[in-house]
């Protein structure tokens, strides 16, 4: 393979390289955790600032938080239904906010200014570990939602409308986290790669449209992930009427 002339410091292409941290005999991706802490810190800072003095006449950041809360509630209520959405609103909201801030943080924060010994900082959601973790949490969540609400009657869902559906429904349990994680991972990574490649080829102006498109995609992906998670939970708690 011919090594690419990597002259510009902002236009380096590094894919699949990680900053490894050793935790006992476990290896973790340090750059993912570093950027996720930045994301979580930003979220918590926003939330703490916005909820410091809650009033009936909202002012300042409280407006933003209430708008977000309203938005998330509508999403959860629409997908999960009036009865169960309250239990799952924090989970759906956290997924949405974490993914949204991760994606936008990956696109907007000039991570490249910080040099790591190996790998590079970026959106935490551009790492397969993060997206698989989120998707598996969704799987656990909808199983838990269904079992806690309906008990073993939850498994009736597998034979509805006919028992022929059993294999498909079982396959679905695997494809759901798979599609969730790979959709998010692929979109965010592809966006970062496109921007990186364009910046590598033409460092100025040309990557801008791709960056804007990336912002749009990032927001949409967060929305899709949260909506689908809510939909899966809603499906699990849904009471079918015979």
């Amino acid at each position, binding site marked *: *393979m011919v090594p690419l002339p990597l002259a510009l410091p902002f236009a380096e*292409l590094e*894919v*699949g*390289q*990680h900053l*490894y941290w050793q*935790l006992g005999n*476990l*290896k*973790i*991706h340090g750059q*993912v*955790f570093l950027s*996720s802490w930045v994301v*979580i810190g930003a*979220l*918590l800072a926003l*939330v*703490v600032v*916005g*909820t410091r003095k*809650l*009033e*009936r006449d*909202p002012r300042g950041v*409280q407006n933003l*938080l*209430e708008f977000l*809360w*309203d938005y*998330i*509630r509508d999403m959860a209520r629409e997908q999960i239904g009036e009865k169960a959405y309250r239990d799952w*609103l*924090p*989970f759906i*909201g*956290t*997924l949405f*906010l*974490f993914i949204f801030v991760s994606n936008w943080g990956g696109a907007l924060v000039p991570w490249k200014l910080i040099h790591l010994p190996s790998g590079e900082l970026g959106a*935490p959601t551009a*790492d*397969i*570990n*993060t997206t*698989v*973790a*989120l998707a*598996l*949490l969704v799987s656990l969540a909808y199983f838990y939602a269904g079992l806690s609400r309906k008990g073993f009657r939850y498994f009736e869902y597998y034979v509805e409308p006919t028992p022929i559906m059993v294999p498909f429904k079982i396959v679905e349990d695997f494809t759901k986290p798979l599609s969730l994680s790979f959709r998010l991972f692929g979109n965010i*990574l592809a966006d970062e790669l496109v921007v990186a490649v364009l910046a590598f080829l033409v460092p100025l102006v040309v990557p801008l449209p791709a960056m804007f498109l990336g912002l749009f995609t990032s927001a949409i992906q967060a929305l899709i992930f949260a909506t689908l998670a809510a939909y899966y939970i809603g499906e699990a708690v849904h009471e079918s009427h015979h």
Partner: protein
Amino acid sequence: MTSWLLLGATEGGLFDLDATLPLMAVQVVLLTFILNALFFRPVGRVVEEREGYITTSRAEAKQKLAQVERLEADLAAQLKEARLATQKLIQDAEQDCDRLYRDALAAATADANASREQARREIDAERESAFKQLQGDAEKLGDLIVDRLLAAK
């Protein structure tokens, strides 16, 4: 370029699943609880309280509006009644006034007629008496003239 992806490589690669996964999951679950305590619960409470406040305020306002409308209707009815009463009063007063005027006029006319009649009668009587006196005087003078003429002869 494909070597960058390092599929199945022991170190690195795009699909390098390791302990990052469970730790990230734990982190997100923790974040869920923290955000629930710091964000979703308090903001939800505030929003729902406001929604309740708005609902009750609106119900109260609706009630008040209904009351106001009822009072307004009441008032309008009262006003109408009062206006009718006034009109009747005015009509009565006008009629009274008219009657009084007519009575007074009739009385005055009668009075005037009576006094005119009396005056005429008095005048007639005086004229009569004056006439009679004049006639008497005239006859007396005539007699006197006749006497004198006769005496002079």
